């Protein structure tokens, strides 16, 4: 397996731990931001492990949909790919606002995310990280 795949998986794990710490501090915007990074790293770890060429952008949700027929992947993961694609796109769409707030309206990030937003982000990041880790640990 490519070294970079395992490196990205490790980065995803670190981001997830930071997201959980941020949530404990009540810093929900950072929780969402770190959860997004976790998902992006985990998905890119999957692409690297499969040597699948992907664009260097944050939202790689659409590219994940191309793997639903990739027989190298276990069937249960292939079935979950649309869900992972959706949460990848959803978190990527919140990326800028979770970091910088709504610059256009002068609203800081901390005012834009609630505890339940943070909990959902951690849930989605944990799900994605766990799914990719299971696969990479087999490889």
């Amino acid at each position: 397996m490519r070294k970079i795949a395992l490196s990205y998986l490790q980065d995803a794990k670190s981001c997830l731990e930071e997201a959980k710490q941020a949530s404990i501090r009540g810093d929900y915007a950072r929780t969402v931001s770190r959860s997004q990074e976790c998902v992006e790293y985990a998905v890119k770890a999957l692409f690297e492990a499969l040597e699948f060429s992907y664009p260097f952008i944050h939202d790689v949700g659409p590219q994940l949909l191309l793997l639903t027929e990739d027989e190298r992947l276990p069937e249960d993961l292939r079935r979950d790919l649309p869900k992972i694609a959706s949460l990848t796109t959803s978190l990527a769409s919140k990326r800028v606002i979770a970091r910088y707030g709504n610059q256009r309206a002068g609203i800081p990030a901390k005012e834009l995310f609630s505890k339940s937003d943070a909990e959902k982000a951690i849930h989605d990041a944990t799900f994605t990280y766990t799914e990719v880790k299971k696969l990479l640990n087999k490889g």
Partner: protein
Amino acid sequence: MEPLTYIKPYVTQLIELTKIHYGKRLVSLAVFGSLAKGVFKLNRSDIDLLLILSDSSKNHCKRVDEFVKNVLMPYYSSSEYIKALRTTYLPPVSVVIYSREEARFFHDIYLDMTLWCEILHDKDSFLKKVLDAMRKKIDEWGSVRKEVSGKSFWILKPDLKMGEELIDKTKPLV
């Protein structure tokens, strides 16, 4: 094929899905950014959309999640999109969603939109009125748009005095 010609059917599909999902809640829908400006580059540009809704959750996450679930994922999952993605790069979609009330106030995306904007749906000419009011402000202030190395910025009021407040966030444009 020219990037603008190539991307047009995908943008059309995205617009249709947006109109279908939001229905009567959709006040205004516009394309802005490089696509509206006519300088769209397939490998470097986003598809920038502005949505103004009659009722929109105050929670930013919920707004985005609704758009991703009901518009973006059906768009990304369509057979035409998947087929194209297998052979080429398709640009990401970047969306700004405002409620009608929020959209009445100054937002800096309106600045470039006074110059380049394709309005695709506009109930009671709401967005047109907002952009007309923005143009009036720009004239009053003597605003200048500058472009340096492909990056742009606005000097809103060249003779602005230190401490002078230019934008009153309590006063709507319309």
